[in-house]
């Protein structure tokens, strides 16, 4: 009985989390298949730890952190095989199944923390305060990362030709 209840709970979590994790994974890796591998592994781990995860305030945040941790390890292991010079940018452009690759490529040109701040805020939907807590940075810094990151992406994908970073001149 307890097992059935747990399965039903997990199924609800799965439906809520799967797409969100996939969105994050894709923006972090730029590769659909690799994203699926990551998301699969995260969802397996969540179920393995379900007794604990279900008691957390935000199981999706836990899963998101696991996703990022897994991606760190996987990226480090695979960095040579994939070739960091081409890296995710080339992988993204080589993926025929997904459009919007310009914005993904532009995202990957940003410094790491700007990338992660943008993903957590604009895609995951965390507040600035939550992103700051997640990244261990002051809220003002996170706002700056968001602003600068968006501005640089906007330039790179041709939305504007003039830098619009707040507090700076073009």
């Amino acid at each position, binding site marked *: 009985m307890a097992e059935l209840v747990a399965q039903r709970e997990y199924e609800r979590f799965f439906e809520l989390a799967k797409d969100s994790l996939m969105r994050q994974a*894709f923006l972090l890796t730029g590769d659909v298949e690799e994203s*699926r591998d990551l998301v699969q592994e995260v969802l397996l781990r969540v*179920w393995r730890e379900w007794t604990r995860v279900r008691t957390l305030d935000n199981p999706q945040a836990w899963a998101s952190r696991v996703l990022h941790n897994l991606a760190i390890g996987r990226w480090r292991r695979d960095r040579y095989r994939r*070739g*960091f010079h081409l890296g995710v940018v080339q992988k993204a452009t080589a993926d025929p199944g997904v459009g919007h690759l310009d914005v993904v490529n532009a995202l990957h040109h940003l410094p790491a923390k700007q990338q992660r701040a943008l993903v957590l805020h604009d895609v995951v939907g965390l507040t*600035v305060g939550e992103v700051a807590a997640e990244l261990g940075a002051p809220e003002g810094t996170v706002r700056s990362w968001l602003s600068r990151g968006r501005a640089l992406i906007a330039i790179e994908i041709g939305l504007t030709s003039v830098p619009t970073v707040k507090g700076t001149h073009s």
Partner: protein
Amino acid sequence: MTTNQEQPSSLDAQVASRLRGAAQEAADQHWSFSADDVFAAVSPPMHARHRYRLPRSSVGRVATTVVVAVLIVVVFLVPLPQLHLFGLSPANQPSSLNWSATDLGPAEFTAVACSTPTHCIALGPNGWTASSDDGGTLWTSAQAVSLPDANFTKAVCPSATRCVAVSGPIETVFTSLPGIAVVSSDGGLHWARANIPGSPAEMTGGLTCPTSSVCYAPATGLGRNGQSFLLKSTNGGLSWTARLAGPKNGFRGAISCPTARRCWAVGGSSEIVTTSDGGRTWEAQKVPMGGGGQPGLEDLYCPNVLHCVAVGIEPSPGYPIGVVTDNGGSSWRFADFQYSSTSMAQGREIGGAVASATCSAAGRCVAVGTAAISGPILEVSDDWGNSWRQPASPSSESGGRLMAVTCDAQERCIVVGSTENGAALIATNLPQASWTVRYQGVGSNWASISCPGLNHCVAVGSGPLGYLYPDGAGILTSDDGGVHWVRRELPAGIVAVIGVDCPAAGRCFATAEVVASSALLRKGTPWVATILRSDDGGSTWHLESLPGALLLAGISCPSLTSCFAAGAVDANGVAGHDAIVATVDGGAHWAAQAVPTPPGAQGLSTISCPSPRQCWAVGDLVALVTANGGRTWRDQPLAGVLQAIDCPTKQMCVVTSVGSGTTSTSYSPVHLTRNGGRTWLSPPSPVEKAVLTGVSCPTSSECVAVGSDSHGAVVLASFDGGRRWSVQTVAHSVQAVSYDTVRCAKPRHCVILGGGWISELVIGE
């Protein structure tokens, strides 16, 4: 959630919208992965960390749908001999002491070089190095404090004492490591950052030293639009004082100079460029293009001015690829890698890349890399790359990676990389001889440990994918308290080893799974529980016979002749009623004991027996105790998902569980009895919502518990007999999501399993 949401401008909103759109498009692509696939792979729910989780009927399905599934995490705790060597005084004990961690081996080595015919070094992440003084046969690993964590891609030793290594930069969402150059003047023992005067620059990952003094390394200026240039050293890599303009498209990384003036390099667009004047001018050479476009060349090696081999990946569909020349680059042609023409063409492989190549002066070339499915790629040519063959890989595991290769003038070669379970791998080869593994780290997936002597420990575990790939089952022994480990042979047919206990330094018992008889196989039962026994401290093992069909997890052996193993009845592959089997004659006979199964219980996961008459066993929603050697077992008033137990004395037991708060409630992750189970306390937890999956009490006053909370791996310790617990800060070079189990062979000295590592932890003075 929205009160603090950044309010973007219109342009910001467009960018955010584009980001979401790109991500959503990926998420919207059809993908049939469902919760049922998860249940099939990891089932039933993980209320306890024991090994009967994989429905046997699901094996085939899982094998095809689950790419990475770390299925087996077993927590298993056993009693230790009483060791009151220097018990800590609770009254004077600070709440938190200094801990130091020793990671017992790197995840992989990524660069290798030899400074003399006998002295060789290998480098890996997190400062790990290995060295050999006998030409690569025996290797010793160490974590060099002076070697920074870097993405080392190339090492070269231009003289007997001087070695240089460079890393390529890593800058991703997850981590950021600079491209650096390090240099050693004592053959790789100590390292220091090489001096790069002038404006800030970082290496791009290539390195070559055509003479003992001249070295070249491509670099880029720091900053968003940094210029690419070639750094030159004239003192064997100690300092890089000259900057030479690079080719039109910059450098991708790899470079090889057979002389100080003649070099080949991979350009920024993955083209091959060459110079005849020591890097002052560059000329592009025509490289054949495959169906996928310009090859992504990762490494290049030119033993002389006529011959070169360049290797990498064809961008689409991701084939391993190489190009060779035997006329100084006037023309390049594809290397006929056997791997590409067999595995890929036959559809047995989906992709891969060649990471490193080298050639001897006599024309023997070796190329290594990694394939997506079958793991190591190893190609050898004896005619300058005209024809290639595939010798047997040094890594027997399907998922291993080969990262770098070096060969000396005698054509002895060394390859470095890692195995499927994350253990570092070094192998050597002599001409016409097979490859021999010379060094292999312990890797991950070690689930249970027993330390019957102050320095002797036995660790057991299963493969990274559990029963799906049973070759990973293994047993390690250590004779130095867990610093160095030796892998031991298992009896034929063993697919998993789950728990281990050694009542004496010479005798050990382990719970395991073995391939079932053909009769059982026909009934759909591929594996059955068994007990392994060793009478030589874990060096050799043989099978004991067991009554009935069981699923066994924990084992505890309070004496040489008395041993208890806990688990559940095998109900078609899942846990049924609680089960305990015991021997009183040193393993000659094992008998099932009558144990109750409280409502909701799903089998026993671990057992601890401080004496042959007294045992505690715990699992999901169940805690049992016997005071008469197992003739009768009775329930203990412990609720919750019980994970681990250790009983240093007949009166004292510590049970750990899934906790939900910090207060003294039934949801505390720690439960304590000091009167033989008559009453239990739940001390306050210093961390919220912790899952403590391992506990070890080397004395009745000192206990260490490990597991995880919402922030990752956690270590708690008590120095007053389990009444008060405090978080221990452990300096650990590898980020661990959780620790699985702990064993303290003596006070202040523990070995922790988890996070992919076996770690020795020592509490500071």
